[in-house]
């Protein structure tokens, strides 16, 4: 079976729309994520531009709220999750010696729902009142009684994303459970596969909760129910319980595949086996379980009982233990290795440091009484952007720089990638470090204008954000040059000096169909 050759525009479109090949679908996911990343990134830059100075710069407060809402929704559901799903599609079959995913047609569908889901969301601006404007957390009653008509488009869009995620998760679980090479036991699976295996279960558990929540919202809006409406006997706090029961595990859904990527890359460039590999798997499982019993830490100021707060404070700060295990084991992997600093390794190391800082501030946020001073301020904004941008996004970059030569068959320019790394790492800190201090000195989040005392730090953050945004164009160029212009030195099958695993046994670029017959175990 050779490469699929499609001639003519129509044939090309048909090929990509009807493909059931895991590599094609992985590519589609990744390209879609890249587009959404730039869309939502542009929104973030608009937000930062408005906040450059106090006073109304160029944005109306309502438009500001719409940007805040869409930036969050599109980044989480449109950029980060599809990017990670792209990695899963490309890598899981390659890493476990499977010919494809377990349900190739469902796989096609779970991707092709997404453009429609985001079409609905992004084009809802044409509804009267424009885009949703209540933050990605869409708290009732702001989104129920007071939400603009476009809220209904958002609800439908979230339903579609949920269906897509659940199908993708079922596919991943089925693939891992049934399509592994026969000799591969669960504990032999690469850690990236393990991380997605657990993440997929997490997704199946939480996505229905989100679906229920948005359905209740829809009923409150149009069918006269009062689930979240106090005047009708409902409970606005119930919304927050439901949302965060989904929402907290959701952030671990983003982080755990990132852990998986980092755990693949660090051993390769330290030329050492992953330290405490078993414990790394236990730690991910442990984080997944804990993620279901920490959600109230998002709601410490809603007036829940003191003892409930203490319970959730303890569970929250205990998450630091398995997270610590992961960080210590990465450091353990580096210890006495033979470390080299190729672009994926640089991003992985940056991830370890910056994600840990995000984790530390998460610990501070978990302490109830101190949380009263941090909650809903820029301290929180800094915390989760440190974990999601310099955490998950950096891990995605790590993964792309690591596997891209395998996917395209060509090396990219290390020089440009190094520039991308240094500019990103410096500017990401220039953007988010000042925000901790903004929060501590009293600036609430989600405000379009602020008191003059916050000017200096906001300026710094905006300058950082602009540099960060522009630096990502380097990344875009690297991808275009490598994938579309087909420039670059041909890559070997192993790609990197010390790679281990089944994906490195196939040629680069990986042929359209791999492992049509079961591969034999790799000899150590």
């Amino acid at each position: 079976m050779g490469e699929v050759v499609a001639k003519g525009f129509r044939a090309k479109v048909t090929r990509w729309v009807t493909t059931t090949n895991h590599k094609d679908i992985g590519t589609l996911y990744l390209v879609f994520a890249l587009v959404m990343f730039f869309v939502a990134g542009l929104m973030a830059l608009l937000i930062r531009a408005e906040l450059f100075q106090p006073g109304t710069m160029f944005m109306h407060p309502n438009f500001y709220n719409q940007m805040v809402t869409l930036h969050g929704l599109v980044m989480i559901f449109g950029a980060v999750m599809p990017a990670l799903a792209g990695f899963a599609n490309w890598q899981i079959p390659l890493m476990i010696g499977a010919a494809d995913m377990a349900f190739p047609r469902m796989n096609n569908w779970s991707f092709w729902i997404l453009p429609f889901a985001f079409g609905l969301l992004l084009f809802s601006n044409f509804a009267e009142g424009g885009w949703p404007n209540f933050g990605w957390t869409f708290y009732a009653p702001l989104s129920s009684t007071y939400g603009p008509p476009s809220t209904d488009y958002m609800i439908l869009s979230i339903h579609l994303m949920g269906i897509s995620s659940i199908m993708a998760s079922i596919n991943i679980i089925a693939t891992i459970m049934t399509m592994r090479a026969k000799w591969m036991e669960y504990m032999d699976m690469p850690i990236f596969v393990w991380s997605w295996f657990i993440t997929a279960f997490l997704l199946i558990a939480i996505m229905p909760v989100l679906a229920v929540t948005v359905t209740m919202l829809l009923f409150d809006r149009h069918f006269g129910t009062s689930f979240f409406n106090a005047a009708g006997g409902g409970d606005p706090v119930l919304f927050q319980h439901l949302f965060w029961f989904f929402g907290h595990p959701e952030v671990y859904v983003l982080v755990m595949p990132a852990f998986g990527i980092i755990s693949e890359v660090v051993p390769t460039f330290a030329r050492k086996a992953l330290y405490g590999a078993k414990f790394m798997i236990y730690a991910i499982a442990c984080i997944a379980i804990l993620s279901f019993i920490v959600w109230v830490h998002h709601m410490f100021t809603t007036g829940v009982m003191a003892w409930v707060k203490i319970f959730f404070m303890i569970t929250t700060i205990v998450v630091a233990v398995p997270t610590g295990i992961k960080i210590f084991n990465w450091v353990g992997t580096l210890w006495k290795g033979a470390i080299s600093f190729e672009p994926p390794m640089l991003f992985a190391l940056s991830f370890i440091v910056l994600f840990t800082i995000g984790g530390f501030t998460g610990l501070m946020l978990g302490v109830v009484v101190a949380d009263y001073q941090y909650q809903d301020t820029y301290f929180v904004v800094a915390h989760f952007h440190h974990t999601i941008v310099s955490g998950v996004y950096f891990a995605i970059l790590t993964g792309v720089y690591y596997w891209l030569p395998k996917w395209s068959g060509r090396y990219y320019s290390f020089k440009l990638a190094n520039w991308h790394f240094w500019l990103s790492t410096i500017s990401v800190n220039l953007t988010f470090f000042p925000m901790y201090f903004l929060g501590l000195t009293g600036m609430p989040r989600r405000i379009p204008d602020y008191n003059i005392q916050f000017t200096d730090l906001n300026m710094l953050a905006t300058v950082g954000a602009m540099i960060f945004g522009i630096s990502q164009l380097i990344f875009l160029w690297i991808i275009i040059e490598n994938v579309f212009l087909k420039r670059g030195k041909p890559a070997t099958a192993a790609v990197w000096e010390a790679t281990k695993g089944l994906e490195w046994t196939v040629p680069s670029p990986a042929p359209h169909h791999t492992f049509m017959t079961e591969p034999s175990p790799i000899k150590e």
Partner: protein
Amino acid sequence: MYTLLLGSVSTLFASYNMTQGVTPMSHRIYDIHMLMFYVCVIAGIATFGVMFYALLKHRKSLGVTPAQSKGHLALEIIWTVVPLLILLGLSYPAGKILMDMDEAKEAEVNILVTGLQWKWKYEYLDHGFSFYSNLSTPMAQRNGLEPKGEHYLLEVDEPVVVPIHTHVRFLFTSRDVNHSWWVPDFAVKVDCIPGYINEGWVYVEKPGTYRGQCTELCGMLHGFMPIVVEAKTQEDYQKWLAKRMDIVIQKEADRVLTKDEAMKKGQQVYQVHCQSCHQADGKGMPPAIPGMVGGKITTGPVSGHVDVLLNGIKGTGMQAFGEQLTNEEIAAVITYERNAWGNDKKAGELVQPKTIDQARGGAALAEPSQEVVKPKVDTSQWDSKTAMAVGKSVYDKNCQSCHQINGEGMPPMFPSLKGSKVVVGPVSQHIQLLLMGVKGTAMASFAWMSDEEIAGVITYKRNSWGNNEIKYGKDAGGLITPAEVKAMRGAK
């Protein structure tokens, strides 16, 4: 020299750190914040120290051969158990502060804070008066036409005032969406949620002005609803209280406005309450916020315009101003809107406070002629007609916002008065309730009202919405006289 340098560095840090605040609780919270910070710094230095040592010494370029170690069980156990113990240890002091905070104290001042889009309402429950607190930063500063002041966006037309060295209990609720009341210097951040009443305690140690903001996204102008608290000495607080009570007792005069007066006053009201959405030029921001220039409402019938102002438009950003503004303010702003921006060509009416007063009575009460709804009623002849008229006017001003025009309240927060135990029960208990209020709820004491007013409003409640002797037995209904109220005051 070094101490000087050290001093200036620490001031610099302090200016970028959490405030220590002015209450015993805020000091303790600051301490736990710093404790957590130092724990994280130490853990960070240890972890990153080892990591960077490895990055420097164990590089391939130095020609090292990688070790073959794959893990170490004892090490794994150590770095699981040690952090666990440290973390559980840290949760103890935090939990202790939380439990101390949660402890109920004897409150000397009770203030109900209601968040609404996009202002705060403060109700002094012990004294039965309330006021709204709006952003007072001029639009010109926001648009960059005037230089920004020191307290840009952190200043209000009327701050909430508390005495120092006193346990002040704040109760928090909301009338529309979620808000959150945060004053960093008090370390109090409590969500205001419709249907809920949350609690927060403040014991201020130092007089001064303390500023904060809403911290829960509550719609378009979330960033423009600041909080200003003035903490005064007991003596100054009492003075302020006395002055404030005078304003409450003053009756709104049944004034007739001239067009110039109405336009001038109307413009002022417009700038505070309308301009942020509908813009200074009245053009709004279609489609979310309709323009007023030649608009359907502003150049349509006056009655429709009044209705929108009083009751708002459900499901949109247009809120009900009925109880936020006086009749005079509403009349003035309507006059302004119907005469400004060229609307005088199509509309141009002068609307009087009386019209608004009549509209408030509305169709909900089909009874007597509009005449008796006027606040000034001759009470020398105390008969049921007089009592009902006085009662209705008092009810509309003081009770309706919670218990609603139809007496059904908003359960569970504000009980219904229809057939309620108190309203159809013995008269003495009903009077008692009004004089004393109900502790721990939003029901304030109304002892500051005159005997006539209390007698009137009780009579009104006991004879409206189907509350009567026929339905509920001999305790219900009845005409209550001012003398009965006076006697109860003595009994207390």
